[in-house]
């Protein structure tokens, strides 16, 4: 009666049926599952039920999987209740108030950790190189980046922040400047958003302020985005002159030679073939000052995939962050980075402007 294996072309459909049968109260599906159990043995049904081969239709999977709501969303709703009921509840500092995308009319869909995604699908060849998944930046709420909604009602200029190091004496020739490893496009996550928004003489940040005000006008977002806890106020006073910045460099394709040494991308590069011959940044005007504030120089964390990331660090003057070149792990001098003048994302070779990113919520993302 039992057959050896389920035909491959039927696997996806049958797996989907069996997967749904255990999660829905539909008798016909239960009967189908039992037929399949008799026909293809228990092992197959168990595999289909646990979706171990990942063949279940992704839409069905998404609909039938029970996911916990993101903590940020829960907290937002709890904050709304607290405001409505006049409860003086002090939320932990780590939980920041979020700005909510006005595009999402359904209140349940509050974006949590956004993914920057290029607007134009034709640029997909660049996406893998530039797209940054913020979930990689950390699991704690402190790492939630600014949520900047992009829609037609708000100005799009400077609606996110990124920078690229400029050409200067550290880049001996144009090839080095264009070298994605030596001079990558780096998105920035700003943790201490409110301090930055309060900076005078900063066009980008005032635009951010406008963005936020636009959202506060929206009644659906008002309750959730306003209200800063006492603890957070306290922390912001402590950090009055500091800015905490997370920098993440996207994965780059740096190949190794046969002898295991890193290839130089550019033939004209005068840089040594060292694994840490990449562009790096550091912030402060004075190294002593930086080490004093941060307890040391920022460690250069590079994994096997050549993902490089800096942990959060503080610096005194936001406009004095420097990008420079290092060959030995220590920062040499570099050019100041102008945060205000780079409101665009470019491709990895700096040839094409990829336009503004759109932000997609990870809440409904299919895993």
């Amino acid at each position, binding site marked *: 009666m039992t057959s050896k294996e389920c035909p491959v072309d039927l696997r996806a459909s049958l797996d989907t049926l069996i997967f749904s049968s255990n999660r829905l109260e539909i008798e016909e599906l239960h009967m189908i599952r039992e037929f399949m159990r008799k026909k293809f043995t228990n092992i197959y049904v168990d595999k289909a039920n646990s979706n171990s081969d990942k063949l279940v239709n992704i839409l069905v999977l998404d609909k039938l999987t029970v996911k*916990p709501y993101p903590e940020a969303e*829960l907290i937002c709703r709890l904050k709304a209740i607290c405001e409505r009921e006049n409860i003086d509840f002090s939320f932990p500092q780590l939980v920041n108030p979020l700005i909510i995308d006005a595009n999402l009319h359904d209140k349940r869909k509050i974006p949590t950790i956004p993914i920057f995604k290029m607007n134009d699908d034709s640029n997909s060849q660049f996406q893998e190189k530039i797209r940054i998944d913020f979930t990689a930046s950390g699991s704690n709420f402190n790492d939630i980046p600014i949520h900047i909604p992009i829609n037609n009602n708000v100005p799009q200029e400077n609606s996110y922040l990124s920078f690229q190091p400029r050409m200067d004496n550290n880049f001996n020739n144009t090839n080095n400047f264009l070298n994605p490893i030596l001079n990558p496009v780096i998105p920035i996550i700003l943790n201490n958003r409110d301090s930055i928004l309060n900076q005078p003489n900063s066009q980008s940040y005032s635009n951010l302020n406008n963005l936020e005000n636009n959202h506060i006008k929206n009644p659906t977002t008002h309750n959730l985005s306003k209200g800063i806890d006492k603890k957070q106020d306290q922390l912001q006073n402590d950090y009055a002159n500091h800015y905490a910045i997370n920098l993440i460099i996207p994965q780059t394709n740096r190949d190794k030679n046969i002898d295991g040494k890193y290839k130089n991308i550019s033939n004209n590069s005068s840089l040594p073939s060292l694994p840490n011959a990449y562009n790096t940044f550091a912030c402060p005007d004075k190294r002593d000052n930086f080490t004093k504030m941060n307890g040391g120089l920022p460690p250069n964390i590079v994994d096997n995939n050549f993902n490089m990331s800096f942990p959060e660090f503080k610096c005194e003057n936001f406009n004095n962050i420097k990008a420079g070149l290092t060959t030995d792990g220590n920062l040499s001098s570099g050019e100041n980075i102008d945060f205000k003048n780079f409101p665009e994302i470019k491709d990895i070779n700096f040839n094409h402007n990829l336009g503004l990113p759109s932000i997609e919520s990870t809440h409904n993302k299919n895993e």
Partner: protein
Amino acid sequence: MGNKQKSKPEKLLKTSELQTYITIIQVKLNQGRNKKLTLIKRKLDEIIKYLNNNNLDIAKAKMDSLMR
């Protein structure tokens, strides 16, 4: 020789009977809605209670179950 089943004569509903059925269904729907609303209100009250007692974790769990 067969298993002929006698077809039952169709029952004709009077208008008053139909009206009664409709009323009953309306009442049942209302009851269900009220039950659900009471449940939500009770859960909200619980959440407020936990927030007042500084129990953020439990409040979050309750909120999660409420949103489902």
